[in-house]
């Protein structure tokens, strides 16, 4: 698609501005329906029906109507809050959440921009959201918001380490940082996905348990980075009311919400790219049609949606962890285990590749 656009418009900045627009449209639609999916799954898990009034049996219009309601609401900013920072924070958080989509490979033909450091870029972008969180927490002039912001930042910064270490395993095997190259490296069916050790001979069986561990670690730590339950202590509604969201109302609140759901799919997309073959079909090239660029989008979205579903499923199953437990999980369990992973994979690369 990039070449195609370049052939029409020419190799200039407009091409790079147009390229991420489909991703932006996708994010907007996804966030709308992810909210609905969250409510539906939570309802099914607790044997309820969930929204089913607005827009037919499945409540398809529910989130849109909620959004319209939020748009109509008044923007309230607390007395003695820091007006400028208070208003800027949701934009920074949303921008940070959306910037990650630039490197998510939806298909072999469509990726926002194929950076040769895509993965590194993605992880650095997560730290931009941190600034927005701090800004929102500080500017609200509210203790609960400030605590929520500080907790959120401590959590995200701590969990960046296991995230990067778990992803490093795949980087070592694939020998690249570009997101498209990860997908290309997993060509040839489900057993060449990195969760099953990537392409290689019979010796890769040694790797399988370690790769699955790495995948689980990456999943857990990205869960923490997106502040989802069981790691949602930044917004812990029983202690901190709603954390940084507390003072926000109307559209500004909707932007926080939107950013959270946008991030959910972004991290799901990264895990799908790293471990579940990205846009590769599970049947490899046996059926060429199933690996065509359009089908690739469907495969990728299916993997992403599955991971988002697991995130939602976990949220409605597990209770929230305490702050000390959160840090214990990160520093005492996830980081040492991912070091062991890296060590084993490095040995494998030395001796078997």
């Amino acid at each position, binding site marked *: 698609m990039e070449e195609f656009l370049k052939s029409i418009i020419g190799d200039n900045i407009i091409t790079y501005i147009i390229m991420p627009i489909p991703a932006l449209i996708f994010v907007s639609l996804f966030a709308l329906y992810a909210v609905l999916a969250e409510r539906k*799954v939570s*309802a*099914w*898990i*607790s*044997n*309820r*029906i969930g929204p089913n009034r607005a827009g037919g049996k499945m409540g398809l219009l529910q989130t849109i109507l909620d959004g319209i309601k939020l748009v109509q609401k008044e923007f309230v900013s607390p007395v003695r809050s820091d007006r400028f920072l208070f208003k800027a924070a949701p934009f920074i958080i949303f921008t940070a959440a959306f910037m990650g989509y630039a490197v998510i490979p939806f298909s072999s033909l469509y990726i926002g921009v194929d950076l040769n450091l895509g993965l590194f870029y993605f992880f650095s972008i997560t730290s931009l959201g941190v600034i927005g969180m701090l800004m929102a927490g500080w500017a609200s002039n509210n203790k609960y918001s400030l605590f929520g912001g500080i907790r959120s930042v401590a959590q995200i910064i701590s969990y960046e380490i296991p995230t990067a270490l778990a992803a490093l395993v795949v980087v070592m095997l694939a020998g690249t940082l570009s997101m498209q190259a990860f997908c290309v490296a997993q060509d040839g069916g489900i057993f060449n996905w990195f969760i099953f050790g990537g392409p290689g001979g019979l010796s890769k069986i040694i790797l399988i348990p370690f790769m699955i561990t790495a995948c689980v670690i990456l999943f857990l730590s990205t869960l923490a980075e997106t502040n989802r339950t069981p790691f949602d202590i930044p917004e812990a509604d029983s202690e901190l009311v709603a954390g940084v969201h507390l003072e926000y109302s109307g559209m500004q609140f909707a932007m926080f919400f939107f950013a959270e759901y946008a991030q959910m799919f972004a991290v799901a997309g990264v895990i799908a790219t790293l471990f579940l073959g990205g846009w590769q079909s599970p049947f490899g090239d046996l059926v060429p049609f199933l690996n065509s660029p359009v089908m690739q989008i469907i495969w990728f979205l299916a993997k992403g949606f599955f991971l988002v579903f697991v995130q939602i499923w976990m949220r409605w*199953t597990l209770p929230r962890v305490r702050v000390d437990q959160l840090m214990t999980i990160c520093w005492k369990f996830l980081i040492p285990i991912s070091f062991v992973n890296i060590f084993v994979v490095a040995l494998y690369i030395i001796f078997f590749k």
Partner: protein
Amino acid sequence: MKAYFSHIYQAVSSILIGMGITGRHMFQKPVTIQYPEQRLQLPERERNRLFVDMEDCIGCDQCAKACPVNCIELKTIKAVPGDIVGKTGLTSQGKKKALFVPTFTIDFAKCCYCQLCVFPCPTECIFMTDVFEFSDFKRAGLKYEFSDMTAEQTAEKKMKAEEYALEQAKKKEEAAKAAASSKSSSAAEKKAAEAKKSEAPPPEDLTQTEDNKNKEV
């Protein structure tokens, strides 16, 4: 070291067990009752909105006396002999009705659904129904009028009752005159003046009655 790995094992296994349970629940039939379309069977002795069967009401005022929050307002007019109260003049149990009931208002904003008014009723004309949805935008809309007598009828009955009372008084006076001195005549005049005074207050405002009739089931 052993504890470390057993912690990992416990965490992973408990997460998997928990997610298995919730995963199973995802495919069970929802227990939600879609309320406005689907309704629960109410128990037999539920206490909801009151209803008064005016055909049976004899205007004895016992329910109003029993009410702990004074939400029942009841006014009666004595029936003239020969006048039939209601359609037949009898309750469904065959008791004779001697009082017209022009006002029988229950204010459900006040009602506490204690059912104390139901027990004293001698004809069982006031009882609890299974209607529980009667929200309203105005507080006045929660005042329910059960009497079906119109303002003219009320005025007419009142007039009749007064005339009858006057007649009775006259009869008494005559009887008294016949019996004793002229002293009593002044007393009769006084009585007449009193009767006139009681006519002075205008009849009850019953405009609400029409509205509430539509609301009744």
